[in-house]
């Protein structure tokens, strides 16, 4: 799963602040491989530009714990780095399906809830997810959806169904899908009326047929740049992460985001402690800090993703809370689902189906 996070704020702020933010990241980038346990240190491995401007320095000011900050671009990179042993990270930020993978692979430590009083801030909707029952290994950091970004002036009415993308020639030659096999096939199943976790050989085969038939109408399987194609006018509809569409909405009023009525794919990025973490107590302290009301609000205000933190949400302004690309309408949200890891065997079948779609 790939998702590039860029804080929306950067688009709205001046260049100087951007340079400062870049410099701050650049200076704190050097995590030594195999960093040892040190009094008052925590090694934090996060997505690029996925934190508040002064969140980490405030944490250090408050607790005296130094943060070694390291960045990854997508889950695959993070997973690959930890796959053959933890090089010294204390806190990582995997997405929900990777949390599940890592639990299965014994790569995560149990989180001691007693050490994290700020768990009380989390919206009850997020406290018992199927991918980590009881939240033993992960706590929610940010969440969002995969939906449809579209050019308002190019459609008679906003798209309402995944079938507009997957099973209709209404927008032939103007559609971009993502290049991530699992996500595309999941939403093709959703278009066919199934749960996106209802992996069976028949459903997969049906989704494959659907894509093969629709391929002629699809302009691009976009690797992380569906929003750019939309902005450049190369396509009028793009299946994308809400955050990516939100970004181009800032640049172009003619672009909108909709979660189809069948519901979309929900994602959740989580705070977890990987096995082999050298500073477990400090890891708990950092997680507790990030889940604080004010810290959470500062982060959300800077990166503009949806926060699962109810206490933080109360501190946010309407420009954030009423944004339909961040918080989609409840009706569509209710039908949206978090992806469950389909298992290695099914993953192989998914990849083979995808190869056939691409070769066909």
């Amino acid at each position, binding site marked *: 799963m790939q998702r590039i996070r860029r804080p929306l704020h950067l688009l709205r702020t001046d260049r100087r602040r951007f340079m400062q933010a870049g410099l701050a990241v650049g200076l704190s980038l050097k995590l030594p491989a195999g960093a040892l346990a040190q009094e008052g240190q925590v090694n934090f491995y996060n997505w690029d530009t996925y934190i508040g401007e002064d969140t980490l320095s405030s944490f250090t000011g408050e607790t005296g714990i130094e943060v070694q900050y390291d960045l990854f671009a997508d889950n695959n990179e993070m997973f*690959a780095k930890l796959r053959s042993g933890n090089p010294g990270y204390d806190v990582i930020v995997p997405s929900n399906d990777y949390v599940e993978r890592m639990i299965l692979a014994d*790569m995560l430590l149990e989180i001691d809830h007693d050490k994290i009083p700020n768990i009380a801030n989390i919206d009850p909707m997020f406290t018992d997810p199927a991918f980590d029952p009881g939240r033993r290994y992960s706590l929610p950091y940010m969440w969002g959806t995969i939906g449809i970004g579209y050019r308002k002036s190019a459609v008679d009415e906003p798209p309402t169904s995944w079938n507009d993308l997957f099973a209709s020639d209404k927008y032939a030659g103007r559609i971009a899908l993502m290049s991530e*096999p699992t996500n595309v096939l999941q939403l093709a199943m959703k278009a066919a009326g199934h749960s996106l976790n209802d992996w069976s050989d028949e459903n997969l085969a049906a989704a494959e047929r659907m894509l093969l038939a629709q391929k002629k109408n699809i302009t691009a399987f976009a690797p992380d740049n569906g929003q750019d194609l939309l902005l450049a006018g190369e396509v009028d509809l793009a299946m994308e992460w809400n955050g990516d569409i939100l970004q181009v909405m800032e640049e172009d009023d003619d672009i909108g985001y909709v979660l189809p009525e069948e519901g979309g794919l929900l994602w959740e990025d989580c705070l977890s402690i990987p096995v082999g973490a050298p500073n477990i107590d400090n890891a708990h302290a950092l997680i507790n800090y990030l889940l604080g009301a004010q810290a959470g609000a500062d982060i959300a205000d800077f990166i503009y993703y949806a926060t699962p933190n109810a206490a933080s949400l109360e501190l946010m302004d309407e420009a954030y809370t009423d944004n339909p690309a961040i918080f989609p309408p409840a009706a569509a949200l209710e039908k949206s689902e978090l992806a469950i890891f389909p298992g290695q065997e099914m993953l192989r079948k998914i990849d083979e189906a995808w190869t056939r779609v*691409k070769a066909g």
Partner: protein
Amino acid sequence: MADGRQAAAQRPWVFAAFALPSLGWLLAFFLVPLGIIWLYSVGENVSLTRVETTWTLLNYARILEPEILDLALRSIRIAGLATLVCLVIGFPMALVIATASPAAKPWLLLAIMLPFWTNLLIRTYALLNILGTRGRLNEALGWVHGHLHGAFELVGLGQLGLLEERFTPFTFLGTETGVVIGIVYVSLPFAILPLYSVLERMDKSLLEASLDLGAGQLTTFRRVLLPLALPGVVSATIITFIPALGQFLTPDLLGRGQVDMIANVIERQFKGANDWPYGAAISMVLLYATFLLLALRAFGDARRSAARNAR
């Protein structure tokens, strides 16, 4: 060559001292990783994070699936076409540089190398900007079309319908043509340099002799220039074709995921699909094919020099 060998025989320690770093490099960063990949290719996933070497051939058997063969054929077609275009464009360019004045030569060579100073990803995005349906190239073509159309109207040729009323932009992105253009763009310097080095060393008086003795331009090219440049052509072909076969960024961006090549399948195995053994097996097969090509070339070289010695 022979002198070098003699010197090495006389002073083995000096030779070893010079050879050791590169041998060490070769061992640590080529042979050992390659060995690991080879072990993966005969292994199985036993958990999400562990691969066990079970000496299975199943990973190789999966490569025989028709869709994989389709993608392999497509990759060979695209890489072959790109190589051909590189040779056709690169040969005259190399010839121009080789015959240019000594003052101009470094500048011309610099112009060939200049694109390397920019990151591949950025160059590819620049091409996206140029080749898009609403890109710069179509913009320019549309402009020319509009003016030509206006001119035809003006001189009374409008009824002939030589040009359509409106300009239909060309689709480059998402087609094999677009991918070939992208690969040619990145490979061209690699094709020009070996051609240049051969043409540069060539004895130009041979061309003059051929022309003086009555052979036409075409015959001189075909019977004198081309045979002399053949080693360069072979090098240029190999150095273009092999990396072109392993492209995945260009099909992703310029091909818009519509013209996947075999390396896209490999990339997925090491990422989302999390199937390293299968990805390793496909990589190894590509590698075997590469070795085969290089072996054929070495064989050809040996035969040529044997023929020369016999004369």
